[in-house]
Structures are given as C-alpha cells and as structure tokens.
C-alpha cells in the first residue's frame, strides 16, 4: 500500500466518522423551525444562539459544571494513584500471591457493569444511602488501570529500576519518580478513560443524583433534553445539549494527546 492510498483511507474514514458530530455542532446554531425543512443544512440555516441561551438559563448550570469538574479531578487523581501504586507492586514483586492478587483485582473487568451497578444500588438502598451525591465516587476503584499500568511497568527495562535501587531509592520513590513518568502514554489514555466515567457514566449518575443542585452536567442537561420526547420538536435544543456535553471530551483529548508520545524509553539506557 502506498503512502497516498493510506492517506486517502485515513482522511475518508475520519470524515465519515466525524460527520455526525459536525452536523450536531452546526445544526445546534439553528432555530428548530429550520429542521423541518429537509434536507438538513450543512451550515446553519438561520444562525442563532437561542438554543444555547436556553441552556445557560438553567438555574444550576454553573453548579453542574463545577460538580462535573470536581468529580473528574477526584476520580483522576484517585484512580491513577491508587491503581498505579497497586499495579507497581504487582509488576515488581514476583510471587504466587501477587499473580493471584492480580487476577483478583482484575475480576471486575469480567463482570458486566450492570451487575455491579445493580449490586451497588441494592447495597446503597439497604443502607439508605441512595441519593447521597458522594456515591458517584464509587468508580474510584479502577480495574482497567491496574491492567494497563502493570503492563506498562513490566515493559520498563529492568535496568532502570535496578539502578535506582542500587543507588538507594525506596520503592515508593522509584514508583513516583521513575516508573510513573515512564508510563506517561498510559496516563494519557487514563485521562480519556476516567474522563469518560466522569462525563459519560450516565446510568450510575442518573440513578443517584436526583436533586437539581447535585447533578452533574451530563445528568442535568441530558435529562432535560431527553424529556423532549417528540423527535422533531426542539431538535436544535437537543443538539445544543449534545454539543455542550461534547466540549469536555475535546478538552480532555487535547490535554491527553500531549502524552501520546512513543518510544519514551528508547535510548534511555546507555551501554
């Protein structure tokens, strides 16, 4: 395959995949009336910010943004440090216990999320804790992170860690200042995966956040947009909601893409 064909393939698929998003963004600036006149226009039919004004007018709009950001930061710091530290131990210590423990800690990956959600919800309702905003922090244990980080740590050349040990560094220090920085690409992936939980885990957040001021941006906006049941009516508002909910993902991706750098360890070890 020549380079030109590859380029064409990539461009073509990129356009096909991102076209719905383009439509969403461009048509969110259109008055709903414009939609009844099919075919949908590629550029806004009659440019208007009315849909966005309606979104901003929600009483708790600012609060929702704050809630979502707070959730994201807490999950981010918590998930990466907790599962990273565990994965480091599992990668460094070679014993029967750790290899069993590894599979035990990965087990949530093999259990359907819904089973876990139902289970958690039942436990919470038994304890009378449903509706407590703090329970949206339940995804703090991140099994996929244990998997990713352990593989990452395993691929670090043995000499890196060993030479640090010979120079008297403790394990915690090696983890924080050598192992972790060398797995930056995984941290980059984590931003997206954890962000997906914070900004996208609609089911769990919807089940637990019932009060307006406790809602996340996702729950607050999506429940309002989805209440618009007739499909054509108010589609502009729907798409504007979609666009607003889409912004955090772009921000996260731009933050994380900086870390998708390959070959960080190449040339680090000198003979």
């Amino acid at each position: 395959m020549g380079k030109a064909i590859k380029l064409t393939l990539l461009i073509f698929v990129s356009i096909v995949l991102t076209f719905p998003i383009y439509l969403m963004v461009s048509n969110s600036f259109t008055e709903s009336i414009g939609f009844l006149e099919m075919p949908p226009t590629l550029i806004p039919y009659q440019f208007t910010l009315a849909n966005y004004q309606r979104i901003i007018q929600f009483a708790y709009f600012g609060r929702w943004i704050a809630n979502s950001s707070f959730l994201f930061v807490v999950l981010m710091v918590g998930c990466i440090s907790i599962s990273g530290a565990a994965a480091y131990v599992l990668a460094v210590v070679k014993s029967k216990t750790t290899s069993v423990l590894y599979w035990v800690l990965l087990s949530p990956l093999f259990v359907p999320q819904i089973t876990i959600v139902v289970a958690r919800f039942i436990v919470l309702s038994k304890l009378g804790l449903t509706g407590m905003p703090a329970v949206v922090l339940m995804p703090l244990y991140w099994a996929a992170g244990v998997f990713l980080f352990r593989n990452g740590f395993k691929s670090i050349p043995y000499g890196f860690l060993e030479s640090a040990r010979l120079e008297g560094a403790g394990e915690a220090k090696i983890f924080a200042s050598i192992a972790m920085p060398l797995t930056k690409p995984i941290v980059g992936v984590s931003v997206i995966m954890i962000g997906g939980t914070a900004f996208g885990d609609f089911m769990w957040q919807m089940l637990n956040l019932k009060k307006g001021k406790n809602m996340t941006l996702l729950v607050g906006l999506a429940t309002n947009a989805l209440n618009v049941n007739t499909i054509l009516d108010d589609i502009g508002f729907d798409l504007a909601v979609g666009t607003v909910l889409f912004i955090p993902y772009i921000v996260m991706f731009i933050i994380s893409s900086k870390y998708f750098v390959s070959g960080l360890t190449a040339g680090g070890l000198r003979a």
Partner: protein
Amino acid sequence: MKTKVVLSAMIAPAILLYIVSFAVPMVVVGRLSFFKSNYIVSEFVGLGNYVKALQDYYFQKSFFNAFVLMVFIIPISLYISYKLAAALSVFDRRSQGFFRFMLHLPSLVAGIVIGMVWRWMLNETGLINQLLSVVGMRPIWWLVYAWPARISLSVIQMSAMIGGQVLFLSATICSIPLELHDVAQIDGANERKYNRYILRPLLRPMFTLITLLNIIGIMQIWGSIYVVFNSGGPEGSVATPVYEIFLTAFEYSQQGRAAAKGIILMVVIALLLMAKQRVEKWAKQ
C-alpha cells in the same frame, strides 16, 4: 523488611476499595438473587428467580440481539481498525496525532450524547433517508422495524468503537522497537511480509484483548439504546441483555429478578471468554 511494608501500603488502598465497591456488593447481589424482592419486601424463593429469568422471552431475545450485533460489528470494526492503525504508523508524529484525534472523536463521546444526533439522522425524514432518496431508494424506517434498527445500532456502535481500537492498536505498534522494522528490511522483507510475520503476531495479544472487550462491550450497550430507541426498539429488538436488566431493576423494580439476570449475564460472559481461550489454545497446536 521496610520495603515490604512500603509495598503493602502501596497496594492496600486498591484492595480496600476493591472490597468495598466490588466484593461486598457482589456478595449481597448473589444472596439477593435467591429472594423475591422489590425494594420493600423480600421473600426467599430459592432458584425461582433464575428459572423465571431463563424463561423470560425478552431476556432470551436480548441475547439473540447481542449475538446479531456481535456478528455485524466485531469482524468489520476489527478489520477497519487494524488497517487504519497500520496505515497510521507510516506517518510522522504530528499527523498521527491529528488522525488519532479525528478517528477518536466519536468514540470519546458518551452514547447518550452521540445518540441525540443519531436519533435525528435516522428519523423517517432524517439525513440517512434523504441520502437514500438521492440514490433512488425508498426511505427505510430505521427506528420502527427490527432488522433496520439492528443495523443502525451496529453502525452507531461501530462508529463509536473504531477510534478506541485504533488507539489501542497504534499504541502497541508504537511500542514495537524500530530496530525490528530495520532488521526485517535488511533481511529483505517487504511491507506485506513485515506485516504478516512480524506486525500481526506482535499485535495478536491486542487483537484478542479487543475482541474480548468487544464481546463484553456489545452486551453492555446501553446509552445509545436509551436515547435512540426508546424502551429497547421495536418489540425489544435492539435491547441488549444489559438494557433488559436495567429495565428489570429500575423500571419494573424487580430487584431479585434483576440480580439473577445480572448473575446469568456474568456467567454467560465468563463462559464465552473461556471458550475463546480454549479455541485459541487449540488453534495454536
């Protein structure tokens, strides 16, 4: 000795959280699956929930739906993602980043969000049908009939999955030392041979992982169904097992039944994973 303490302290938080947020709820749900319960009263019914769940028409159908979706989605999306990831690897870092960004955009977005566009595009008079009429085809009622609904859900899902798969695959390709490529070239391997004898074998663990994640993922499609196909589509024809369980637990408030269904789903997934492992072992011999 001190090292041991430090290492234990490092792994302890994860174990603690694992117990609180996973192990304990699982034990509780396991116990509850033997009770008939609706959040208020509960009564021991033995295996009754399991029997009723297995006889449930919509629960059976949801597995069929998921199977259909897997057949539609997995081979195609895996092939496309591999081609894209391989194509991506010849470009410099900046254009790689750009294409990863473009391809990954749809998969970044929650099913809830992207669903809002799709339910508008798949409408009777929506964009897709407009395009069909340009080609001279009659409009298809994507959201009204079973098979069109399944096809459209597959397409929605695929568009959301390819980016992530490309990301996984190209991260693996990037981690392959460049020397391997050079050595292969010196030994006279052309690109096709390199792909076949070096790249694909090295990617095989990642292919396996992605397939496994897809099997698990497709049974768990929820967001786009919730938005695009209100209440599981025509006759529940796109409802995945997870959507079925969601309805049982939170719409019909049958806790015990939902617990049993959840455990059945868990067992089904475990069996599938084991079967796949077996087949792979057998294929190696």
